[in-house]
């Protein structure tokens, strides 16, 4: 029998996990919060998400076509970036803000540096920073308060900061998301549910969210105990800790590295909130820690089995 055999190197079996499946899990995890944003902010939220996702995917496609790279839009990573970017916009932001943001996120932050895995910043957060610098009034102005259905600029954290006046919402509203804020950050409980799904499916590890939120909680407890729950439930901490800070390419690889990164992000977040110019600091603190990630990965490596074990050798 004449047979033609494949002679590739071992291993000869592979897990059925793919980049696409991982990204799909992230999208699934974002769906409850997405539904909440549409519930609270209506068609405006839907338009922002659609504009953002479509332009993110299109930008990825055209960038790769133009650069003669394999087209990888089916890995769904651009969809994730699109949703996350839209989640970082206030409901009153015009649709073209979402489009420009997506083009920047995918074109500049991701594709120019080599595409997925090579970006040094979280694309959605990079784009948010860019938009914040370019159109600050669109980014920090038009929040809608779903409770009274009116435009306001008073998010819970800006009230705490004293940057805006208003009544602090109840904890229950903070939890379910019946508060003013960017469209994806408001429902802490649904973001938490999505985050737990990601940990359960092994898409992310628990370390970054736990240490990030833990650090914020610890500092709030020390310096602003009265507003502890607002610091934890508000300001997109849940969104940031579970969905943004855990971005593979821009967070450290090792467990120890992840702890350093998450604690750093937590400290920076509270530093910005308490002492900086912005009422909330999740996105900038993650961006800053993104930049530190290559350095953390350089110095925090796992100790190789049997190498420099010191006194632990021959232990019985």
């Amino acid at each position: 029998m004449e047979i033609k055999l494949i002679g590739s190197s071992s291993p000869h079996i592979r897990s059925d996990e793919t980049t696409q499946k991982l990204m799909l899990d992230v999208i699934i995890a974002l769906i409850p919060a997405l539904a909440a944003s549409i519930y609270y902010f209506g068609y405006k939220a839907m338009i922002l998400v659609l504009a953002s996702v479509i332009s993110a995917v299109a930008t990825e496609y055209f960038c790769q076509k133009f650069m003669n790279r394999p087209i990888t839009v089916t890995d769904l990573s651009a969809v994730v970036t699109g949703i996350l970017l839209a989640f970082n916009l206030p409901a009153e932001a015009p649709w073209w803000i979402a489009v420009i943001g997506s083009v920047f996120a995918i074109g500049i932050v991701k594709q120019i540096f080599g595409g997925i895995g090579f970006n040094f910043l979280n694309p959605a957060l990079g784009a948010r920073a860019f938009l914040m610098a370019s159109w600050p009034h669109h980014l920090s102005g038009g929040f809608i308060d779903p409770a009274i259905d009116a435009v306001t600029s008073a998010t819970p954290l800006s009230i705490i900061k004293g940057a805006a006046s208003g009544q602090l919402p109840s904890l229950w509203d903070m939890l379910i998301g019946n508060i003013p804020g960017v469209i994806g950050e408001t429902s802490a409980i649904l973001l938490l549910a999505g985050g737990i799904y990601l940990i359960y499916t092994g898409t992310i590890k628990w370390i970054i969210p736990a240490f990030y939120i833990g650090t914020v909680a610890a500092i709030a407890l020390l310096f602003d105990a009265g507003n502890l729950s607002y610091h934890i439930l508000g300001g997109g901490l849940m969104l940031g800790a579970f969905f943004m800070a855990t971005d593979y390419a821009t967070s450290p690889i090792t467990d120890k590295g992840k702890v350093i990164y998450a604690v750093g992000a937590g400290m920076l977040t509270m530093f910005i909130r308490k002492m900086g110019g912005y009422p909330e600091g999740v996105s900038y603190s993650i961006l800053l820690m993104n930049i530190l990630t290559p350095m953390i990965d350089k110095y925090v490596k796992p100790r190789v089995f049997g190498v420099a074990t010191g006194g632990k050798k021959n232990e019985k």
Partner: protein
Amino acid sequence: MSTKLFTFKGGIHPPQSKSFTQNVPIEDAPAPDIVVIPLSQHIGAPCDPLVAVGDKVKVGQKIGESKAFVSAPVHSSVSGTVKKIENRQVPGGAKVNCVIIESDGKYEVHESVQPKGKLEDLSKEDILSIIKEAGMAGMGGATFPTHVKLSPPKDKTIDTLLVNGSECEPYLTADHRIMLEKPDLVLLGTKAVMKALGVNKAYICIEDNKPDAIETLQQAVGNEEGIEVVSMIAKYPQGDEKRLINAVTGRVVPSGGLPMEVGCVVENVGTVATIGNVIKTGMPCIQRVVTVTGSAVENPKNLYVRIGTLFKDCIEMCGGYKEEPGKIISGGPMMGIAQYTDEVPVIKGTSGILVLNKKEANVPEHSNCILCGKCVEACPVYLMPYKIARFSLLRNFDGADEYHATDCIECGACSYVCPAKRPLKESISVAKKEILTRRKKAK
């Protein structure tokens, strides 16, 4: 008896795929008309042929030997006539000198094959010489000559023997069946090796996915002094000797070192059972249990095969190909070697013949590394596979060396888990080879 489950950090849980053959008793395979017996089936010096074309040989007759210490003699697995002595393709990938024997179908046993008597009457030296003369080499796949492993340098004190029955490779069930069906030989072999090493402690280590084997061996061992059956969590690569030592004894074999550095010797359970058989019957290492399995095999079986039987004959004995084969692997799917022909012989280290169909054999397209860190998580040596692979692809072998590429055990766990389907192990192997070659040159 211990109920504690031992394990190690890292590793993966691939589908076990053992149901093809785990309940199929070992079947004695008839000798084929022609056997191809390589003169080098082990790590070390190849043997010189002791026979010439036209010679009549008998079962168990020594047909190849080397004067070097690190080598293992080879024996005829059939009686018949030497037809040719020439280079043939072997499962390791190379072409080596082979003795090709036409069987006369009589299986006449050579007069040198005599039972070795009671273990109590054998001295340490007797056992070592029996093992050496029988051509024993590690039958788990590494094929390191057993008598060399059992003769550590004077300055190394060995206190523990680990009999490796983990069989963590998916699909393979040969060791499982040996433990179930030949517990007496496993026990006899274990005691012989303990005596040869002069140790009082032996662990027979079995993964908890083989509860029947654990039970059988616990019964066989009974109250035997110093021998303990231990169960380990089924996880790949538990069967790697350094992982095994670490899991069971807590000792850490230093980087680049051998198990004897921490007072341990690890022997595959199939090797130990064969040593038991050598002592009991005197028959040298001319047969082994091979799991012939995979979705492209009609009736997957555990065959007791004569060394030198061609893969295609083994597959024929299992009803032939069920569908067009895509890949034929010598060994398991994680570390086995893909063959480009089915006309290679079973050697002492052939634990399995795995035939995957076209679909399973398909090599997935790889995409960008997304830095998910799953390879780092999976690596049982705690390396950073993605990093070493990246250095390797850039041909920056100093970088790969700095990240301890040479500590890689090539278990393939990193490639297995990679969601981007990157051939990480392959890249690391390239770097490892290059670094070792450079080191040799520098010397």
